[in-house]
């Protein structure tokens, strides 16, 4: 069986939680993974992944202190494809209300807010995606596909054009965003079985000519 060559994946190492599963998931798809905090390597990445299982503010502070924030921006400006996962997804937005208001990367318009009080929080488990577009990150993913979520906050006020798929937990929220070369998902594709594999493999794909 031959696998087409995959571009290497640069995974930003900024000291946040469990990245082992993300690395394994990409390796299983035949991609090389460079787990690094090196500013030049991050800035020149063609496939950049911002992971994260932690709180928003410390994570954002780490990015700023280490200079990785500028490196991530540089990679995006150069046309590299950025994928934010879970907390890394939330960092893409303008700000978050987790433990006080904190500024995010602002690469995608929107604000990260907690679920309303009446909604079971954290949102843990498998939920369905409501497809909003057919291409790019979600190409080939059927409507109502099941993926695995674990989170207590989610973005609000995301522009409809940026939402590739929504999810409903106490109201609809943007579960996958795709704004030019800035991609992200609130759930864990690396824990979402075959649907997750499809999404990560779409991320690795070359741009359509």
């Amino acid at each position, binding site marked *: 069986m031959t696998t087409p060559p995959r571009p290497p994946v640069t995974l930003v190492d900024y000291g946040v939680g469990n990245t082992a599963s993300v690395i394994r998931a990409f390796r299983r798809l035949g991609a090389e993974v460079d787990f690094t905090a090196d500013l030049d390597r991050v800035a020149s990445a063609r496939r950049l992944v911002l992971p994260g299982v932690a709180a928003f503010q410390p994570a954002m502070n780490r990015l700023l202190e280490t200079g990785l924030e500028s490196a991530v921006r540089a990679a995006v400006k150069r046309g590299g494809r950025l994928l934010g996962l879970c907390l890394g997804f939330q960092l893409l937005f303008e700000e978050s209300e987790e433990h006080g208001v904190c500024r995010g990367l602002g690469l995608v318009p929107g604000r990260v807010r907690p679920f309303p009080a009446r909604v079971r929080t954290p949102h843990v*488990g498998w939920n369905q995606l409501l497809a909003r577009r057919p291409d790019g990150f979600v190409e080939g993913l059927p409507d109502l596909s099941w993926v695995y979520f674990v989170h207590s906050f989610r973005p609000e006020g995301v522009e409809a054009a940026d939402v590739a798929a929504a999810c409903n937990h106490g109201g609809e929220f943007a579960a996958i965003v795709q704004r030019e070369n800035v991609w992200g998902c609130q759930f864990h594709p690396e824990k979402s079985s075959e649907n997750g594999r499809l999404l990560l493999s779409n991320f690795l794909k070359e741009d359509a000519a």
Partner: protein
Amino acid sequence: MTVAVRVIPCLDVANGRVVKGVSFESLRDAGDPVEAAIRYEAEGADELAFLDIAAAHEKRGTLVDLASRVAEVLSIPFTVGGGVRSVEDADALLRAGADRVTVNTAAVEDPSLITRLAEQFGAQCVVVAIDGKRVRDTGGLAVMRVMTHGGRRPTDRTVTGWAAAAAAAGAGEILLTSVDADGTQAGFDLEMLRAVRAAVDIPIVASGGAGQLDDFAKAVVIGGADAVLAASVFHDRIFTIGAVKEAMRRVGLAIRPAPARVRTLLPRYDASGLVPVVMRDVVTGNVLTLAWTNAEALAKTRETGLAHFYSRSRKVLWKKGETSGNVQRVVGISLDCDDDTVLYDVRPSGPACHTGADSCFSRVETLGAPGEDAGPADALDLTALFAVVRARKESPVPGSYTNKLLEAGVSRIAQKVGEEAVETALASVTGDAGALAGEAADLLYHLAVLLTARGVAPGDVAVKLAERRGALRREKP
């Protein structure tokens, strides 16, 4: 649309192996946790839970190593617990690839552990396991008390009070096991679940007591649980994950269906690492032989597409047909309902039996007393019919009706098939069973002539039939 009720198989582990037993002293080995994890994911488990029941007795390293090995193969989340006493313990497990950790006794002894874990890893990573049991207080009233040390040691805390305190301290989920219900198979402890549900807003996993399929839905609908966990009913194959989900779906609960395509099936090998394989001709449906395989021979079969077995007498892996040349091309692999028998659907390139017979099962015993009428056959074999029609086509016999039809051409035969089909349909509503059988025979005969005239082999139809009944499950490359 809503978040699905999670079905979580729990694996009790000790020293890196799955174990079973009613008490620690009577534990026995029940397999490799990695193999079990793969099988549960394929079956549609939403999450797995690993509980190290020997945590106090064994070194911590084995559990971290286990988490790492499981993370290597699993692409669904899993939680690890048993003896987690510190942020460092949790950190090692999460780094190894676990998604969440479960704390129990250590959190009861020092509730600040929950807060420290939540601050470090986020509340969603912290599952607080509560073992509850009804204990009579001094006034003789039954109170639901928190038990520690594997459910053996009572504490002063009430189940509801501790659940609320744990949630306030930062727990992301409560795993509630009723010691009263555990092992009874009389159903989850709905009263205890309801009490905890009233005390906390975070998700609750129900554990202990599952015995009937209905029990799982009851834990959710009546008990208010967000997820259901069970060990022995899944491990002993009393229920499949799919059956549990189907039972919940029937009462209107949201469940995530099992993945449509199973990438690889994993048989349960016996103590010598072997599992029997039945080989079936995918075209005729005939059973050809029974042989044995180990994991290596099965892998070789998948890799080459040709049947490989393990010889118990020679103790070697061998390829079917390696001496005779009669290789068996495997077009489908199935597993029986309890995973201990494999079925290969094959297209044989020659006889399957070393005697030269097509099937190893060619010696047939007569049933019933000699001379007793065996009654009408309950199978219809069209081999002889097709053989006669083909013989006529190849060497015509003067005056043969079959030859007349063949000479008249496909259009004429097609017309006859149409007529016979209508007559069969009419007989089915107006005639007796004998008349219907007669018309059906005419139809089948004309159909055989039509297929032969068009050069369609009976095997081509058999393949279509096999596909229709789902016997052909070609694995995607």
